[in-house]
């Protein structure tokens, strides 16, 4: 899923300051699951903003609404009935959702309330970790199911570097060395031999190297 974290309140306040009526929009997908922008966080941010402005003597009106999915136009359409009552939109969705709202309501300022962080998995309750960078050419089949692009600090495809210590990355003892994990997994699978095959330099065109990407499923696209 896509993970995100709420922006510092101060930054959000700066966006919202010029306005009196705000439509605060949550999303019931990824950002709900990673506890950044679901109905609950919308409620919390709404209350926090109102108090922060009250303290400055301003009565900020906040209308809360959480969409099923903010990156689909049909859902975003739901906002049309309330958009006129707001001077600006504050979105707690990932960057996709923010842009979808901005695209649909072009004359309404839209601000992000979260920082979209990464594509990750939930390691346990309350902990999410990066797993994928969407490079468009998945290597997991040859790296034992662990991605060196997303999980090695240096994106080494032929790691590990000399900084690997006790299974941890040189940048922090809290970060696992991806290549240690790859090696352990290759061993567990009896594929140690595969390690010495040199993985060639990557074709980054499938990733961001090729400019903004688009998927068109001919059979589905209208």
């Amino acid at each position, binding site marked *: 899923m896509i993970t995100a974290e709420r922006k510092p309140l101060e930054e959000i306040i700066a966006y919202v300051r010029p306005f009196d009526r705000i439509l605060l929009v949550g999303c019931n997908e990824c950002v709900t699951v990673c506890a950044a922008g679901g109905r609950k966080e919308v409620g919390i941010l709404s209350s926090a903003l109102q108090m922060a402005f009250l303290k400055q003597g301003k009565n900020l009106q906040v209308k809360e609404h959480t969409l099923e999915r903010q990156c689909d136009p049909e859902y975003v359409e739901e906002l049309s009935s309330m958009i006129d009552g707001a001077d600006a939109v504050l979105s707690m969705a990932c960057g996709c959702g923010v842009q979808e709202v901005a695209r649909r309501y072009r004359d309404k300022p839209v601000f992000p309330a979260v920082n979209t962080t990464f594509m990750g998995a939930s390691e346990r309750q309350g902990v999410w970790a990066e797993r994928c960078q969407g490079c468009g050419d998945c290597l997991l089949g040859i790296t034992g199911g662990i991605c060196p692009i997303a999980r090695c*600090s*240096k*994106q080494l*495809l*032929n790691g590990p*570097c000399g900084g690997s210590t*006790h299974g941890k990355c040189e940048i922090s003892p809290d970060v696992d060395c991806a*290549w240690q994990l790859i090696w*352990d997994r290759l061993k567990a699978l009896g594929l140690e031999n595969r390690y010495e095959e040199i993985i060639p330099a990557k074709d980054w065109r499938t990733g961001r190297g090729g400019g903004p990407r688009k998927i068109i499923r001919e059979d589905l696209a209208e």
Partner: protein
Amino acid sequence: MKTDSVLEKVLSSGKLAVTSECGPPRGAAVDKVKKKAEMLKGVVDAVNVTDNQTAMVRMSSFAAGVFLRQMDLHPILQMVTRDRNRLAMQADIIGAYAHGINTMLCLSGDHPHFGDHPTAANVHDIDSIQFIQMVRQMRDEGTFQGGAEIDQPPKMFIGAAANPFADPFELRVARLAKKVAAGVDFIQTQCIYNLDKFEQWMEGVCARGLHEKCPILAGITPMKSAGMARYMKNKVPGMDVPQELVDRMAGVPKEKQAEEGIKICVESMQRLKEVKGVAGFHIMAIEWEQKVSEIVEKAGLLPRPTV
């Protein structure tokens, strides 16, 4: 001979090679490079010129290397994959070669996390092994990594680093094998303090015959003080400093510690000379270049051969 590299010549003569390094200044104070280089003249066969070492901005290794070359020293151009993509790297390689630099060291580089630009983007378009492959391809096939032909290809003698002490230890020989397979010509190792472990690694290296395909220069760094020993032991990732060594440094009075560090360094070199597969030494006397000649001399490696 693949190249005109002096280092290649020394190594192929079967004599123990000696290299050292020279960190470019953090600014345009070119005199500082020259001063450091002067101390190494006639003492070592070639001099590594570091590339934004520890992710701190310095004068580019290419530019500093050109100064060294002008002083008739033999620079080893260090280049990291952290800061440039493959286009920039190939461009600099050609340029350096055109300036008479024919030896280089292919590295991935320290993470920006450690340096003075922690917010910098981390390029890593290719990794160090792919880097070696690329330089080898430029030299031997005369083509760019993208496949186009090169007009006067750079004939680089290609080096790489190896850290025998990092984890997982069992992968360390295999990783060296990958570098050899990628086409590396020589190896400089991380500083060696844990000689037992190094010998263990070398056994593995020799068992696979890698030392025959690629000469290995043992990395040496003299310690200036017990404090430095402790720092290296505890703070530097991938460094293996045995406690005995720290204790030995701490066991002598402060003013004698530097001397003790040199002594340890020389003792290590004497022992390493006997280790099968060691083809020379890479002496990294960080900001202590004036001691290199003393070390090389005490290790019985002077005068340097002329090739």
